[in-house]
């Protein structure tokens, strides 16, 4: 138990780093991913193609590879990004591609019919998007986004590979000292599960709030 009780501060810091990185990355992924999703369905052909290329490339590479490229390969062309920002950037770029697809599917589900109906009611294109399409899309994508938030949180555990002291990395360091793998990794696993459950709860709550009986 020493391994844990003597290092509560250390562990707490690791947990905090995990949470902060997860929140920042998820937010970034939401913003970039939505922009990509919009580009993906845009009328401008070049935007559609570029967004499609982005998604095709990023979705088909492991996130670890992306991170290694950002931290270890970019310096060889003279671009050096700090470690923690690189982790957030890597996770953002990676998960943005997933958000893009979720948004795209969400919009497709809401359907072209809604758009046409809105336009025929005299709403401008902008109004139609903001007042009709967007709210319905949001309602539909809450659940997949919740799953994605969980994935982002789990993915922060690869931060140790690039020297970021998040929860998994902290536990590894402590294990190097105390050699008590079962206890240390068990505690960390529990913390991750708790985080996952919290996110699931939050997603459910949001879903219930925006639900409209159909």
């Amino acid at each position: 138990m020493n391994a844990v009780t003597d290092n509560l501060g250390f562990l707490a810091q690791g947990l905090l780093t995990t949470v902060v990185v997860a929140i920042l990355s998820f937010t970034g992924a939401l913003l970039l991913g939505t922009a990509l999703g919009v580009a993906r369905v845009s009328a401008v052909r070049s935007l559609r193609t570029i967004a499609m290329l982005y998604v095709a490339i990023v979705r088909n590479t492991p996130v670890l590879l992306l991170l290694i490229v950002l931290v270890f390969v970019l310096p060889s062309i003279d671009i050096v990004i700090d470690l923690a920002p690189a982790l957030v950037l890597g996770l953002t770029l990676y998960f943005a591609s997933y958000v893009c697809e979720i948004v795209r599917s969400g919009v497709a589900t809401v359907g072209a019919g809604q758009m046409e109906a809105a336009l025929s009611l005299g709403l401008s294109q902008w109004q139609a998007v903001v007042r009709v399409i967007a709210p319905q899309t949001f309602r539909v994508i809450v659940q997949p986004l919740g799953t994605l938030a969980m994935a982002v949180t789990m993915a922060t555990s690869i931060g140790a590979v690039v020297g970021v002291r998040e929860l998994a990395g902290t536990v590894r360091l402590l294990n190097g000292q105390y050699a008590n793998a079962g206890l240390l990794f068990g505690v960390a696993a529990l913390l991750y599960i708790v985080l996952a459950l919290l996110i699931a709860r939050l997603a459910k709550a949001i879903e219930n709030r925006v639900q409209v009986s159909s």
Partner: protein
Amino acid sequence: MRPAPLRVAAAAIAVSFALGLSACSAPAAETPVVEGLPDDSPTIDRVISAGELVVGTPDDMPGFNLLDPISGEYTGFEARLAELLSERILGETSVRHVAVTTDTREALIQNGTVDAVLSTYQITSERLEKIDFAGPDLLLGTGIVSAEALDLDEVTDLSELADLRLITTAGAAADLLTQAVPGAEIIVFDSVVSCVQALMDGRGDVFINNEATAIAVLSLVDGVKIVPNTLPLSSFGIGVSKDDPAFTDFVNAFLEEIIEDGTWAEIWEEEITPITGKPAPAAPVVGDLGLE
């Protein structure tokens, strides 16, 4: 349509199962050809029936355990020690390397996945609670590598590094630093190469590790230098199971033997001297684990 996919799936599972099982089948058992082995050591019995000595080592420590990924061969001081040890038990060299990291070393000894760990394994009292150390097999000083441009005086105490960003590999070096220099920013990577890369990219001011690795780094990249230091030597040992004192004694006896007959110094000259340029130092005193 229904039966066919099921059959294919079943066949796939069977095939992968067979492949998996064959991956863990051991080489043919051999009768011991060496005399005078202790008969109360489960580890030695296991080595003999498996026909190979399983050692946990890293892949990327130049001078100690360096794997050429293409040829699959290991070079280095501790790799050679492992070969000699296997020869001592089996009568011929038969070593299987299992990659270990600082996270996994103790667990792999405790659960019997490896017979011994040779990975510039620093002897600490916390580790002695979980496993045993044979040796020490090495005494090494601390190595500090910095960019050529950085101007640092000779370091006599780790606290002098408190204002710098320190890069190191996970493990004893990392927690030693965390304890000795609490205020410093310590950046930890998995492998020596990552650490060196980070140093070159300016992510840290110095890279700290054992002195032989530090010198090996010099041969990998340009633009770095060694910062001289008078920090005390650390003891490194061969990690073995706590539950097999006969094996611990056996390995200790083996180490004493090769130190006495000069083999230890010989291997040092072959593997480490080319890197450091210095002859073999005085051999460690087996049994003196270097702890207060």
